[in-house]
């Protein structure tokens, strides 16, 4: 073992490889890697058993990558990226791929399980042939681990059914019976001792007693009899066959369906191609209010950014002027709305504007004898949302504008003054263009954020007031995300996750387009700043 010099990795010297450095250090690193691998391996076996393929692949890729990075000299620099890369794969790449996958399936209430889980559950069901007697049961066992059922029919007749032998009728005078109680259950029967339901081994309910064809099975805590498996899966025709009636339930989109339309639950999820996306485009119920919602989504995002920016900029300009007294105090106070969590402020606003006891409306009514109905009138509802958004958003805009204003060289203003430009001209031709260079990308980011601002609308008025006469429930202030939330989680059969993921992907594409536009647009602005 040769010992390489320590700490010489900096400045072009050959970087530290895993096999150089002090033995204790190397050992520590390798042990850490081994522990990590062990955890990953355990996790992977679990995922493998649960058939969670996507996550298994992601975890394998991450683990392999980490091993390569830490064992090979060539990938030395990647060691510093590895935590970031691992997290990106786990928290960004994997969810996107998974969402994409789900959007091509029918994963929703009624089809939540995997195929093998659904089949196992349905195959677990039993039926009692109509002529077979029903019994109450008690478990019996010998010391060497043989088990049996003591069965008592409604008429009091007794049957003893051991696991390895035929069931037989027992009469009360049988010499093997010891201490028969009033329910016709003995304490002991030959070598067999009475057991309680709490002391039988795990999986007792899955055992069969007696000899075929007359095997006895437990159905519930109180019932046993010659139960038979009711449904048998036939992989060849992908169908469940009802053993009692012969009805064939064929798998249709993950649900076993009989010719008469009756179905077996649970269903399982299957790929359904582009159907979720088709439904988004073709369904009348969805298209009905869609255009309105779409327009308001844009209007809401644009107006929110515009008013918060203008108000924030105005305040920043005022606070930037040295003649304003106590600027620091004012600035701090104006930041307070930003410091209070949106969850709280939205609910406070909701209370303030409330029609019956709301402070705002009470005051307005006292002064003018009239107050707007913030939650009933479509126009006032929209204004109410914008008011709340203004309150939530202006401190941020003020903050970034103040920062940006500092970067504008004062010489430009002085030069313009000398040239005889008035205040407006100086603002319009110097401050605003230079400001937009820095603030522009943030404005577009704010637009993208408000495009999906589910929280504010959901908390403030749930998208209300409702639009009368629509094919599917929708509100005047619903944005795409709140509207589709209603569609996906208040559909015909509960939550429709796959449809929700399809919508999410469409919104993702929209927002991605906005971001792309953002890059292009700001690139253009940079040229402007160069020519100033």
């Amino acid at each position: 073992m040769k010992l390489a010099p320590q700490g010489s990795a900096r400045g072009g010297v050959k970087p530290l490889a895993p096999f150089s450095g002090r033995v204790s250090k190397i050992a520590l690193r390798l042990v850490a890697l081994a522990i990590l691998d062990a955890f990953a391996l355990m996790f992977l076996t679990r995922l493998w058993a649960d058939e969670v393929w996507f996550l298994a692949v992601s975890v394998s890729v991450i683990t392999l990558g980490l091993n390569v990075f830490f064992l090979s000299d060539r990938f030395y620099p990647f060691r510093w990226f590895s935590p970031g890369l691992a997290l990106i794969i786990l928290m960004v790449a994997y969810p996107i791929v998974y969402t994409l996958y789900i959007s091509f399936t029918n994963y929703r209430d009624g089809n939540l399980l995997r195929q093998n889980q659904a089949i196992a559950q349905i195959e677990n069901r039993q039926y009692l042939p109509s002529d077979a007697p029903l019994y109450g049961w008690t478990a019996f066992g010998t010391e060497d681990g043989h088990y049996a059922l003591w069965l008592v029919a409604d008429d009091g007749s007794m049957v003893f059914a051991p696991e390895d032998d035929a069931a037989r009728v027992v009469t009360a005078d049988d010499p093997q019976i010891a201490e028969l109680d009033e329910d016709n259950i003995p304490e002991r029967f030959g070598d067999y001792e009475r057991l309680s339901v709490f002391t039988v081994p795990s999986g007792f309910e899955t055992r069969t007693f007696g000899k075929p064809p007359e095997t006895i099975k437990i159905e519930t805590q109180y019932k046993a009899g010659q139960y038979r498996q009711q449904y048998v899966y036939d992989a060849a025709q992908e169908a469940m066959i009802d053993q009692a009636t012969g009805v064939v339930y064929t798998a249709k989109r993950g649900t076993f369906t009989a010719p008469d339309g009756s179905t077996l639950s649970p269903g399982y999820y299957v790929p359904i191609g582009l159907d979720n996306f088709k439904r988004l485009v073709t369904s009348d119920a969805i298209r009905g209010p869609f255009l309105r919602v779409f327009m308001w989504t844009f209007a809401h995002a644009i107006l929110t950014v515009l008013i918060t920016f203008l108000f924030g900029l105005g305040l920043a300009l005022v606070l930037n002027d040295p003649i304003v007294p106590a600027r620091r105090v004012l600035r701090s106070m104006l930041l307070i709305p930003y410091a209070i969590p949106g969850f709280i402020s939205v609910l406070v606003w909701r209370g303030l504007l409330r029609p019956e006891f709301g402070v705002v409306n009470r005051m307005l009514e006292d002064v003018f004898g009239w107050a707007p109905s913030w939650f009933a009138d479509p126009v006032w509802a929209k204004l109410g949302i914008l008011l709340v958004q203004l309150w939530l958003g202006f401190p941020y805009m003020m903050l970034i504008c103040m920062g940006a204003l500092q970067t504008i060289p004062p010489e430009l203003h002085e030069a313009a003054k000398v040239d005889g430009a008035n205040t407006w001209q100086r603002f319009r031709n110097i401050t605003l263009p230079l400001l937009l260079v820095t603030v522009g990308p943030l404005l577009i980011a704010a637009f993208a954020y408000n495009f999906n601002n589910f929280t504010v609308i959901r908390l403030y008025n749930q998208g209300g007031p409702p639009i009368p006469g629509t094919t599917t429930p929708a509100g005047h202030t619903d944005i795409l995300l709140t509207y589709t939330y209603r569609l996906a989680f208040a559909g015909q059969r509960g939550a429709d996750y796959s449809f929700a993921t399809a919508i999410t992907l469409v919104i993702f594409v929209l927002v991605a387009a906005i971001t792309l536009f953002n890059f292009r647009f700001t690139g253009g602005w940079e040229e402007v700043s160069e020519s100033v």
Partner: protein
Amino acid sequence: MKTRSAWLSLVLVATIVLSLAGAASTQAQDDAKQLVVWTDENRASIVEGVGAAFEEEYGIKIVVQQMAFGDIRDQLKTAGPAGEGPDILIGAHDWLGELVINGLLAPIDLGDKAEEFAPTALQAFTYDGELYGMPYGIENVAFFRNTDLVPDAPETWEEVGEIAAQLKEEGKAEYGYVIQIADTYHYNPLMTSFGGYIFGLDENNEYDPTDVGVDSEGSIAAATWIDGQIEAGLTPGEADWDTIHALFESGDAAMIITGPWALERIQASGVPYAISPIPDGGKPFLGVQGFMISAFSSEPLLAQAFLTEYLATEDVMQQLFEAGDRPSAFITVADAIEDPDYAAFAEAGAVGQPMPAIPEMSAVWTAVNDAITLTFQQQSDPADAFTTAAEQIRTAIAGEE
């Protein structure tokens, strides 16, 4: 290079040893017989208490995991199929449709014990002819009145309207009967008083999703009545739950429909009140809570036996009643209730119907909430609003495949 491969094999060996050790320890954990129970905060200590006695007797551990009541359903949907779920969970009967169609619950056989539970509670926990829960509590709303303003319980809604008009005229109270906006649950008793309904019943006494009654004659009559009250200024059109309770507690409103959960705040306000059944035989929704068994339980027999032998006792049911603020579903405990308020709730609930547990109900809430909102805000004609809602529900249920 030699040392290098030595190190590599060290990593490999260490990895294998550690994994095996880890696997062995999880294996050991899995092998021990135990029951995992998911409960909410209020009931956790009761189940823990019973579990301690159970463990002492049979050496089988009862692991109580506590979570918010409403989270249990959503958690089960992900944890159940992944094999991480509970054996026993508590929940509300109206989760049944969603949980059963997703294959998350195992049927329960109460045997002779069934006779000890209120039949309506068992009916609520029955889905497609199978019992899926062992109930412990029933809750429903009832009609509250301010006894200073309204000494005698009104028998009909017409009477309610007359009382409201008179109180307003005499300047004794601002409002008569008040009801919150966009709340199908609290609106249902009024709707059913006039003969309206959400889903009709089929021949097996279960809800029939093809029979939507939101635009039935009775439903529209109810909407028209409340619309008239709002127009006359006898009911506020835009009040939420907090507002109507504040109005009732301050004496500004004379009558309200609410549930046992509001008793504490109404008593604290000091307003004199009495509880009676809904006028005109209105049927409040019954909400039943109980214990259910996960379809993914590895010990279904044990879980079932723990329910029937250890939890279905008068002593435990009494504790659950005291912890839960709702009348018991266990007959002997319910009969022993002396509190007149709970007795009155039980009386109002006698005509009640279980809240529909069929999955189609999820299409109802927003549609009917919207119809109520449009009517209350005087934005739509009540008949139009409720016809639209019914059409929205039918469209959603028909779906499109």
